[in-house]
């Protein structure tokens, strides 16, 4: 798990980030050095100007022959054009490398950004081979994966810093990004374009796994939800259909709405609420009862369930493995 903030500045794990990370550091270092040099020269010139203060303020400006002045400008220009030229060439080369995948992607995932969560549609060769999930995007390691990005409502931006740079998602338009993970792992993603109240809490995770494991995950995701078995589950099921089915889909049931994340395999996800809460009965219960308490403005209203109802709903959701 990537835990420390900004750790993507120290480790990349994907073909595109591998290219941009060294460039990021080069630019950062050059910028800091330039800042320091300019600040140093400025301070130096302020010091130097002190002595001449009286003469300079006299009515008649004192004309001095700065014999070396012009030469310094030339030297300055020459020095600064070197890093500029390097960054220009490096940037062009990097852009060419990250623009498209090295070979045709074997897989396409449609990712739609919503206020404030992510929908992921996996397409198979036939409809029965397709499914929808949310906030946790699985990809196989070592192959390029095409991500077709759509904006569901306003402009968002898809960003998984350890794998690739940002690509905006724009309503009414389709933008293409691609990911290729070099090693298995869980990589944090984040919306990177301000999109409203809960922009900061619009995260997701990309889970990169070996092909066999990925295929197993895919097979699991294709399964519809099992019927409820116990009394509590049955009561929870009825409530879920009546209350949650207005916005959520659970494949294999009458809940088919697309207003919120697909819950068919809710329990297979590590995190909930767009990667803001861990997925355990406590956080899940708290989220369902009062999403506004932890994510004010989220488009899921407080559910006002009684304690019994909440317990039953959790019991049913826990069957959605």
């Amino acid at each position, binding site marked *: 798990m990537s835990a420390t903030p900004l750790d993507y500045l120290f480790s990349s794990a994907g073909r595109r980030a591998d290219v941009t990370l060294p460039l990021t550091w080069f630019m950062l270092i050059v910028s800091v050095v330039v800042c320091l040099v300019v600040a140093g020269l400025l301070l130096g010139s302020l010091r130097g100007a002190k002595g001449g203060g009286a003469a300079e303020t006299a009515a008649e400006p004192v004309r001095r022959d700065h014999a070396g002045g012009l030469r310094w400008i030339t030297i300055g220009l020459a020095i600064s054009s070197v890093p500029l030229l390097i960054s220009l060439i490096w940037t062009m080369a990097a852009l060419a490398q990250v623009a498209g995948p090295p070979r045709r992607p074997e897989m396409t995932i449609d990712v739609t950004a919503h206020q404030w969560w992510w929908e992921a549609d996996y397409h198979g060769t036939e409809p029965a081979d397709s499914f929808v999930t949310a906030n946790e995007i699985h990809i196989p390691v070592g192959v390029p994966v095409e991500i077709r990005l759509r904006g569901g409502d306003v402009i968002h931006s898809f960003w998984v810093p350890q794998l690739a740079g940002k690509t905006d998602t724009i309503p009414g338009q389709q933008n293409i990004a691609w990911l290729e993970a070099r090693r298995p792992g869980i990589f944090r993603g984040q919306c990177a374009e301000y999109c409203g109240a809960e922009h900061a809490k619009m995260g997701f995770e990309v889970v990169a796994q070996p092909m066999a494991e990925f295929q197993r995950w895919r097979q699991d995701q294709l399964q519809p939800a099992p019927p409820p078995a116990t009394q509590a589950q049955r009561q929870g099921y009825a409530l879920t259909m009546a209350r949650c089915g207005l916005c959520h889909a659970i494949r294999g049931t009458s809940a088919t709405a697309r207003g919120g994340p697909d819950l068919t395999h809710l329990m297979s996800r590590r995190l909930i609420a767009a990667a803001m*809460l*861990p997925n*355990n*009965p*406590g*956080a899940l*219960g*708290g*989220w369902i*009862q*009062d999403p506004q*308490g*932890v994510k004010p403005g989220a488009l899921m209203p407080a559910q006002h*369930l*009684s*304690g*019994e109802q*909440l*317990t039953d709903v*959790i019991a049913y959701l826990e069957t959605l493995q």
Partner: protein
Amino acid sequence: MRRLIPLCAALAFTACHDGHRHDEAKALIAAKCGACHVVPGVRTAIGRVGPSLTGFARRQVIAGRFTNNRQMLIRWLLHPQMLQPGGAMPDTGLTPPQAARIADYLQTLDKR
């Protein structure tokens, strides 16, 4: 002055040590309770589903029913659904040592 330095260092160390004593409890609370309770000292515990646990150490009864002592609190944390069937607080899957650690932390919350 010379003597003060080690004294300060020792104080700083114990303060620091004390600060970390409840780290595990706080992490557990952040993961399992924060969506329902406000808990002082845990930044992400901002939930409004259950009562705020501010000043919990001074509370006389747990969930309006059970005497507030360490033993009872641990039982409550382990089996809220058994003690209060149908209550909104779910069993959160704590182990007894985890529940004990959380209880120890909650019992330090004596400020209103």
